[in-house]
């Protein structure tokens, strides 16, 4: 297949999957088979694109013409390629996990769940491959709306409240800030294509460019930059597979991915480096990293702790992009992948613990490592990756971010990274210690979670380690961002 057809296929497979799954409401086995098949096909299509992109091709497909002279375009570039690879690979693992989780917990509305999941993946792929801002915005909003039924899956009062926060934050920021930012860009430049080196130049002047950047980074609420981070903990009312793929990978990564993309392709790294009015961004990102870590330290609910850890880790990506050095931009791209593998492992483990032991609080996890050794071993690997220790993926990306911060001589950023590493260790290692070295609570008779779930979390843990040893592919894609 030629690359253009692959791009279209990648966008169409999950959509077709969603339709098919909806039609198979009465045949759960076939339905889940279709989910897995779609995930596999999607990954195959995305993976087949990778060699083309590595070779320097930028396949593009023009869809509808939305406004006169403003079409919806899909165009694959290295960063989007990387994001799509990560998301589609993890969808396979996550589908496996979902099947185990949803059946074991006897969740209702499973068809709706799989349909929305496939829809969310379609939106994610569209975000990854968006060729201009309007396509990105359309897919970004679609992702918010299609994940709303997933977040409120349980349909109870808590889900409704969580859903309100989720939707309120994400739609409000995107409509009020992001949309205006996009229109300002269109008005000022007459284009909203993603162009290497940026499209903005110095058209707006120093102060207005800084203001526009603020509209973008706060408008992309999915990046969970403080003070617009509250939706992410609120989204934890969702079933765990949702938290895992969407709120560790697809949705949040869509946010930071969009931030990096805007910095690299709209503002332009070099153009921004000359402006004094964008200096506040590393500070805000740094504050978010530290503050969210502190909150995570105090959270007893496991998923809440993971959520705040996500908030903190996302800001690594924003910080890295905001440092505006070639090394840190590579670090930003790598961290999108590295954090995805690590965090999905952690969420899978949390879901496995809930399914097998019905425990949600950190303080209840004494000795659980002895009953669920595989799960907790995978959890430990994920935790190491969050902290940034070898032999995990987190080490690679953190290395580049730290090198970038040092080469930029941005000592605040260096201090933030060091401090947060300590904080990460402070809230993850006690869980591991508690699980393996504290005595078991009496009367707890359970083993591992169902096999598909354990297989899934071991797979992602393996990926986390693999990315440490085989970082070539992501690194090659990330390097292309800097025009290599």
């Amino acid at each position, binding site marked *: 297949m030629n690359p253009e057809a692959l791009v279209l296929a990648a966008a169409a497979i999950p959509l077709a999957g969603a339709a098919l799954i909806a039609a198979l409401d009465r045949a759960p086995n076939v339905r889940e088979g279709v989910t897995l098949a779609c995930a596999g096909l999607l990954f195959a299509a995305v993976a087949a694109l990778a060699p083309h992109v590595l070779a320097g091709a930028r396949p593009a497909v023009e869809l*509808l*013409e*939305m*406004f*006169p002279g403003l079409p*919806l375009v899909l165009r694959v570039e290295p960063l989007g390629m990387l994001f799509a690879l990560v998301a589609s690979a993890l969808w396979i693992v996550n589908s496996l996990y979902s099947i185990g989780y949803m059946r074991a917990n006897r969740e209702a509305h499973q068809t709706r769940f799989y349909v929305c999941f496939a829809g969310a993946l379609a939106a994610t792929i569209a975000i990854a491959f968006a060729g201009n801002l*309007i396509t990105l*915005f*359309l897919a970004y*909003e*679609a992702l918010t*709306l299609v994940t709303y039924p997933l977040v*409120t899956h349980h*349909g109870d009062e808590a*889900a*409704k409240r969580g859903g*309100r926060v989720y*939707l*309120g934050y994400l*739609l*409000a920021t995107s*409509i*009020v800030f992001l*949309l*205006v930012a996009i*229109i*300002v860009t*269109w*008005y000022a430049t007459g284009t909203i294509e993603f162009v290497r080196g940026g499209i903005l130049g110095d058209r707006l002047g120093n102060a207005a460019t800084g*203001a526009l950047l603020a509209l973008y980074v706060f408008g992309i609420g999915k990046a969970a930059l403080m003070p617009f981070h509250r939706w992410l903990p609120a989204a934890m009312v969702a079933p765990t597979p949702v938290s895992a793929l969407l709120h560790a990978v697809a949705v949040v990564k869509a946010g930071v991915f969009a931030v990096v993309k805007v910095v690299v392709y709209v503002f332009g790294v070099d153009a921004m480096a000359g402006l004094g009015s964008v200096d506040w961004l590393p500070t805000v990102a740094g504050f978010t990293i530290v503050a969210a870590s502190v909150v995570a330290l105090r959270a007893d609910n496991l998923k809440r702790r993971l959520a705040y850890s996500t908030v903190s880790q996302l800001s690594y990506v924003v910080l890295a992009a905001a440092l505006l050095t070639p090394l840190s931009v590579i670090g930003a791209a790598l961290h999108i992948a590295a954090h995805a593998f690590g965090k999905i492992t952690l969420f899978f483990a949390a879901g496995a613990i809930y399914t097998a032991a019905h425990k949600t609080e950190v303080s209840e996890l004494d000795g659980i490592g002895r009953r669920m050794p595989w799960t907790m071993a995978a959890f430990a690997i994920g935790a190491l990756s969050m902290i940034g220790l070898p032999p995990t993926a987190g080490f690679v990306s953190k290395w580049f971010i730290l090198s970038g911060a040092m080469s930029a001589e941005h000592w605040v950023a260096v201090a933030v990274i060091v401090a947060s590493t300590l904080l990460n260790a402070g809230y993850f290692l006690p869980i591991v210690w508690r699980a393996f070295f504290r005595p078991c609570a009496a009367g707890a008779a359970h083993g591992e979670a169902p096999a598909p779930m354990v297989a899934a979390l071991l797979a992602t843990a393996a990926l986390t380690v693999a990315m440490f040893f085989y970082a070539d592919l992501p690194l090659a894609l990330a390097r292309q961002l800097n025009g290599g």
Partner: protein
Amino acid sequence: MIGEHLPALQVVVPLVAAPLIVLARRGAAAWLIATIASFVSLAIALALFVEVREAGVVSYALGSWAPPWGIEYRIDAANSVVLVLVALLASFVAPYAWRSAAFEVPEDQHYLCYAMFCLCLAGLLGIAITGDAFNLFVFLEISSLSSYVLIALGRDRRALLSAYQYLIVGTIGATFYVIGVGLLYLETGTLNIADLAARVAEVGTERPVLAALAFITVGLSLKLALFPLHFWLPNAYAYAPSIVSAFLAGTATKVSIYALLRFYFSVFGAHELFEVLPMGAILLALSVAAMMLASLGAVFQDNLKHMLAYSSVGQIGYITFGISLANQPALTGSVVHLVNHGVTKTALFLLAGAVAFRVRSVRFERLGGLARAMPLTCAGIVAGGFSLIGVPGTAGFVSKWYFVLGALEAGSWSMAFLPVVSSLIALWYMWRFVEVAYFRAPGPALAGVKEAPPALLVPSLALIAVTVFFGLDAPLTVGAAAQAAQVLLGGIR
């Protein structure tokens, strides 16, 4: 042969259909005539639309009395859009009326209902097509009188009082308008709009001209429900039969907005509007108030139709917001929102009618868990709600894009935030419906409630599909709107 008389037929077809319906009397025949008249009107409107795109302006001298002495029908880029909108919505409402009116209107009044519908259609099309200021008044009254009757057909006795109040307000509005036209006539000696434009320019800013401007503004603002002159609208729309609320919500206010646009930009000019009188600033303030306060009002309604009605007032605020900025993108936004909101709101009222058809109430407290009983209807309402919010991929997004662009063109970043903040309020009120329909357990009011019949569902969902289509593939609507804006701004001096 017929081709050259299309402008006259545009009005004559529905006008003649009305007495035919009264002669036919039988419900089925009446419905058939009304539906055919709507479809024929749509065909004529589309033919005229195409003709105008090629020829620029189509002028038709009624009874061969040459303008400016005789009455001229004059179709250009601006009103051809309005004609298509009105006829299009009528063509969706008429098929829907088959089941809906049978349910909501007493059987012996069916033929009268359809006759009034045709008269109203004729009046609205007439307002849009005529090039004569006094003729416009006559059509305004034809459409208004028939809509008073239509509203009074509602089953609830409050429909009677709403119709009466609308009659009082509407008559005052129309009379204000005709006073304004009278003053212009006294000053210039002509009633032809194109001719008026030239002569008002010669007269300049004499006091009668300014007084005329004020009278026409107030009169038409009453008709188009500009905040705070909107008080008649919510009850009128809420208690009218479903087909009537749907049809009027999409067309009546929109046609009045067109009339305002015509007078502002074609007859008066930038000088009178924005230099001598601060019309821009006044209109801006009122539009912002509508966008914010009326939308907020929608949040606190306990009834779906009331909520939609208040939302209409808010959305009209968007349109007048664009008018007040008076630049190319903002005015494009206004015209395109005229269409987009007309289509969206009619679709939503049709769906609300489907709810009323099954549940026999549109009060939120009875609608808990509705999505389980009527999934397609609720999905349609949510999709229409997305358009009110302005989610990308729906028609509402397209208009919002141009309003923000227009605010930037006017040189103001802060004004660019007004439309988007208002859309958050829309999110708020639409989400109240979502939470009622999807999160509450079904109450006793929903016992035995099924999905709406296809006769209601198909036209409403088709119109929702149009909303989505206009959102994804906008060059057609935006192109027409941009042309209209150009024509209107071209008249401004």
